[in-house]
């Protein structure tokens, strides 16, 4: 079976949704293929077991290999990562974008040229601050930072808080791709093919002629389909995009430079109630140490508390019973390790090797020290120990000793921010794609997702993915 499209967009996360939406609205015949299924935004509560089953690749159980295994999350559904992340929105610092430009020689790129794209993203994807102030966990973070003399800031989200009352939309207002750009693309005539996995791209010299895909049928079978396309955008995320390129024969600087934001989480127990899950994700972050180090709080339901408390059970049982006095807090840093992505023969799985470097451990240690200081200043009685088998931390001295020597391989480290595996720029010695995402050596194969970032954006990346994708697809449209 053969199908045709002007433009084939592979992946429906932020990069793919932006690409498909603008191309379709410009009158192009667009086909979006997505490996995962379409799930309505309200099909499962955020961060629930059901959501993990529906929308996460492998239920969220993906890990890197290296001295410390890092659990990484990927969306695998229509809307991709935008359906499962915290939906926090940032513009990167101007200095970060300028460094990217210099690092790989990106043409027509920088804070000024990207500003209109960020403004469009903020408008079209409903980036909003809380309308009636912040919840108790954020207030606690503010209080602790205030005691330390550090600044904090509420981070805007891709979220709608419309409705009656001060809690309107807090748990249900996510403005992910499945409710923003994908419907716009479909309204403009784009076609969407969920549960469709791309086997490989088809190539004739410098031109990509389409792709071979495997699609789920209504009868529960899989069928192979050839899709012929004039142009192809691969927007499958920082792990799946380089995998597809490599198995299609594109290997130059592809999948050799994956970067991420390693994150560790601890729980902290307070004397008074501070955890109210009806506020959803706490949106306050400590600004003081950015870029490079971010401190904040996470959604802290009982199941998540149980997940992150570690094995110090005496402490854990008490915390679970008094869960409203306990919250999950995180340290995220800009990682320095470069990862390689390869396919494991025969099993059709990626092998992601990425070292957690000594510099990363030192940064995580510094972050843990500062986070602990803040939490004690805010009134914490005890902190969980992120090291396997470690005892709860109750004093500044215990905190300092732990932070000085975080051990390799004995902590739960995770991330949902992955990027830089197909870097863009004019310097072909270090990049895989040109300044607007066209893969070197091809006329019509483009990448348009976080893979393109030359380095870390040092902030939650979804806003930057959307702005860069908008810039690139408008360039392609001319």
């Amino acid at each position, binding site marked *: 079976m053969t199908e045709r499209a002007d433009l084939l967009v592979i992946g429906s996360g932020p990069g793919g949704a932006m690409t498909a939406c603008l191309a379709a609205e410009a009158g192009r015949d667009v086909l979006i293929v997505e490996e995962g299924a379409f799930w309505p935004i309200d099909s499962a509560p955020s961060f629930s077991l059901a959501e993990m089953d529906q929308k996460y690749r492998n239920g969220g*159980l993906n890990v890197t290999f290296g001295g410390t295994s890092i659990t990484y999350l990927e969306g695998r559904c229509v809307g991709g990562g935008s359906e499962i992340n915290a939906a926090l929105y940032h513009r990167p610092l101007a200095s970060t974008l300028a460094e990217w430009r210099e690092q790989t020689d990106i043409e027509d790129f920088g804070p000024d040229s990207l500003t209109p794209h960020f403004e469009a993203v903020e408008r079209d994807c409903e980036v909003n601050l809380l309308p009636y102030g912040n919840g108790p966990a954020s207030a606690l973070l503010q209080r602790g930072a205030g005691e330390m003399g550090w600044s904090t800031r509420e981070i805007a989200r891709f979220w709608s808080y419309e409705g009656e009352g001060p809690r309107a939309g807090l748990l249900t207002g996510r403005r992910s791709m499945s409710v923003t750009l994908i419907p716009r693309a479909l309204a403009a005539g784009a076609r969407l093919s969920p549960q469709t996995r791309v086997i490989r791209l088809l190539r004739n010299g410098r031109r990509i002629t389409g792709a071979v895909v495997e699609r789920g049928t209504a009868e529960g079978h899989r069928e192979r389909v050839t899709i012929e396309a004039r142009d192809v955008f691969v927007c499958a995320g920082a792990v799946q995009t380089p995998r597809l390129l490599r198995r299609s024969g594109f290997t130059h600087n592809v999948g050799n430079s994956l970067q991420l934001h390693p994150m560790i989480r601890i729980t902290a127990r307070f004397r008074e109630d501070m955890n109210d899950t009806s506020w959803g994700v706490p949106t306050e972050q400590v600004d003081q140490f950015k870029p490079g180090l971010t401190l904040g709080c996470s959604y802290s339901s009982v199941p998540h508390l149980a997940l992150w408390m570690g094995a110090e059970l005496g402490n854990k049982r008490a915390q679970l019973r008094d869960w409203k006095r306990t919250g999950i807090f995180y340290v995220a840093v800009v990682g320095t390790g470069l990862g390689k992505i390869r396919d494991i023969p025969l099993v059709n799985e990626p*092998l992601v090797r990425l070292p957690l470097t000594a510099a990363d451990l030192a940064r995580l240690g510094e972050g843990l020290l500062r986070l602990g200081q803040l939490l004690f200043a805010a009134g914490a009685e005890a902190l969980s120990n992120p090291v396997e088998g470690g005892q709860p931390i109750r004093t500044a001295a215990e905190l300092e000793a732990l932070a000085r020597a975080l051990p390799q391989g004995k902590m739960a480290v995770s991330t949902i921010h992955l990027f830089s595996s197909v870097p863009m720029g004019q310097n072909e010695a270090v990049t895989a794609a040109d300044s607007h995402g066209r893969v070197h050596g091809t006329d019509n194969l483009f990448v348009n997702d976080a893979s393109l970032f030359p380095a870390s954006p040092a902030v939650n990346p979804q806003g930057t993915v959307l702005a860069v994708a908008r810039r690139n697809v408008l360039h392609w449209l001319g």
Partner: protein
Amino acid sequence: MPLSPLPAPVVARLARAVRGIAEAEVAEELDRSDLLGVPGLEETAHVLQSRLLGMPRHFAAGMVALTLAFEAAGPFSELSLDRRRRRLARLRSLPLGPLKNFTTFYDKMAPFIFWSVLEESGELDQVLAGVSR
């Protein structure tokens, strides 16, 4: 990609093994020697097994093999809860990499799934109220 379908006898054996481990992990979580009247156990074991089989195949294969081997010694699922908890505790103390991955998976996922199941069924507060201090 999930692990390919396993033969029925292997699936049945695996289900017993996972149920045995899930019960031991929940008993540890609640610090109890019996689980009489504790809701959500069957669902927890079922979801835990689907998580195990839904892991990337290169991880799932090893984890399934270890789980079956663990069950074979005992059989684990037929031991008393206290003996199961002690056996898991001994395993946690061993420094071997694959065994560490094995215990980390069950130590993390079983409690997360158990409390998630109770949260979904509305029985969380009732069980939390019974958690010993």
